[in-house]
């Protein structure tokens, strides 16, 4: 009975952690692809992203390197990457729980059944 409770607990924890992972994945996707598209790509003056004020028009853009990287690489990729790394470290240390993985089934490995 205790084994089943431990197994069910692991399942609940694993499912919660999987949901957190998917949320982080979606946020990283939205930020990196979105930011790089708006500030790292060249857009014509009549494109909808410029018209909507989301991206700078071609005559207003200047090349600004930060520590040798183009600025859009720093804000769209390097910083989010470092943020994801920091979150992963936090998640591994404090977010994920330690659970009993359960005993190995007797049948299986050495027999084909």
């Amino acid at each position, binding site marked *: 009975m205790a084994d089943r409770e431990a197994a069910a607990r692991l*399942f609940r924890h694993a499912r919660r952690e999987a949901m957190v992972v998917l949320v982080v994945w979606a946020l*990283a996707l939205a930020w990196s692809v979105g930011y790089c598209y708006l500030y790292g*790509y060249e857009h014509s003056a009549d494109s909808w992203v410029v018209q909507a004020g989301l991206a700078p028009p071609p005559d207003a853009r200047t*090349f600004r390197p930060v520590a040798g990287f183009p600025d859009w690489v720093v804000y769209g990729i390097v910083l989010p990457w470092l943020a994801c790394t920091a979150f992963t*470290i936090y998640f591994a240390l404090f977010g*994920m729980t330690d659970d009993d*993985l359960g005993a190995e089934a007797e049948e299986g490995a050495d027999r084909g059944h």
Partner: protein
Amino acid sequence: MGIELSPESWQVLIAFGCYLIGVALLGVFSHRYLSRGSFVKEYFLGNRGLGPWVLALTVAATAISGGTFMGFPSLIYTNGWIMALWICSYMVVPLMTMALFGKRINQVARISGAVTVPDVLRDRFQSPGLGILATFLILLFLTFNLVAQFKAGGLVLKEAIRLPPAEAAFQGAEVDKDKNLVLRFRLADGREEVQRTPLPHENARFLGARPIVHEEPEVEVSFQVGGRTVTKHVRYPPQKLTLPLLGWLIDKGYLIGLLVFAGTVIAYTTYGGFWAVTWTDVLEGLVMLAGVILMAFLAIRAVPPVEVERPVVSASGQPAVVTEELRGLAAATERLRKQDPRLVYGPGPDNFLPLGLGFSFFLMWSLMGAGQPSGMVRLMSFKDTPSLRRALLLVCGYYVTTYLSLLIIFVCARAIFPTEYLRDIGSEGEPDSIMPVMAREVTRPLTVGSFRIGPLVSGLLLAAPYAAIMSTVAAFLLMISSSLVRDLYQRTINPDVSPRTMKVISYGVTALVGVVVMLGALNPPGFLQYIIVFTGTGQGCSFLVPMFLGLYWRRATRAGVIAAMLGGFLVVLGLYALGWIDSRCQAAIAEYERKVETAQARNEPAPEPPALARALDDGLRWFPGWGEKRPDRFAPLYAGGLDPLVWGFLASLALGVGVSLMTKPDPELVKKYFF
């Protein structure tokens, strides 16, 4: 066969030799583990005993393949900083590959005693058919992928050995109808040999060619491109030999490289099984990490400084201009901007990464990584959850260091060699050789006293891609072997086979698979890069959704998971097949139109039109992506501007959920796996 090598090549080989001895010793050491407990579980799964360090480095080393160190660098060199967006989903790959499934797949595998990925699916849904389908897909994808990896392994060692070219006399050069430059040579034994190389640009005009001696004999070819004269250096033909029995004429350097590579990796994988693969992964992972960090440091130092003018406001409030000297990465980025502004902005040269593909690649690395059966097996093998958590810490640090270092190294490479290794402008070589070239170039000035240690360090740097290929090959080799031995033979054909027989069969099949793949790599087809991408995409789309539904969704059913697996696979296969058909149709129609023009000019009767190509083109014109220009005739159809992975994944998800909702799950299985 006699081998003449330069002193530099010997130093490179000594460094390689040290690495290979280390790998061999680990293989022998790992064999001792095989006498513990169940042979099958130990040989194919390490008896679920992986600790954090081994788990972290085996996950990372298996995911990083030859493409990471050969194809990716050439893409950075050619396309510049946009490659940061192309690769950036590795920021979430540790979470997606380890935290998404880790605990749960390990728990489910323990419940049924599963040893392989098909085992997990088969037991979770009590479906031998599902197990066999999964086994078939793994065999299909991994066998093709292995041929490509073996080829890459042979090529890296060939580059390290650098045999001198064959003795030959240059006869002349011409441009053929496919826009290839064809150089003719007469070998010492009287045979004629040709070297083919793409024109530096499709509109390049061939001016002439002359033999020269640089570091070795070469032919310098001149072209006129857009009002400029550019040169390209083409090597003399390689030394070749005829294979006994098969009668194939093979490049001697490649053959030596392939035999050494295959011999080492087959021997240690067969002898040591899972433990040999994972322990060598640890060594290979450390070699790769040390290699990229050292190379990034040396590459930044090797970039020539550049001066830029910067507007400032003087103390008196007047606008002024100051000259500033940039060094290191800042100088490299500035040099790229001056070469071509598209190298520092999206979508890169030649519209390399439009928004749809940028989005697709983010999904590709993160979803494909999570859906690889070779990664799932490693998650079935860790010993406890603290090991998983600590391994996650290590892997995220490993990826950020490796990929950002590679970006920096090959942006610097473009600054150091502005055109030399570009296919479109180029002079000396092809972009795929930029990794070995950088390894040689950045280590050239290194000395200890009066002794040049550059070649020795270069050998250690070249060991990094070699290690990457080796770790992937070993993992895939064991996966194929386990699919044949465990999933097909033991679980389907002969369930009562004795442990002793299983032991003999496991050793025999692993070695046999390695030898067969090596024979395939002796004369591999030329479009392997697309096979690698196809197999990776196909695996991701076939396994990610079925495994996710099976592990986390009580309502998932056998029929739903089979539909998800087949749906993902068939959509990816279909889009690749349609891409190939489209390319063939467009080529046939273009060829017909060219023949019509020629016939009209000569007053000859019109040729027969390509009826099938026309019919297919008319019938499929409505399909998104049909008829659009693609980078290669083997490239897939990018429907809606998106990679086939996106459509395969969506089809798999829709079918998996839809069919599961239309069918009923087995209550006993739900109780067994969801408590």
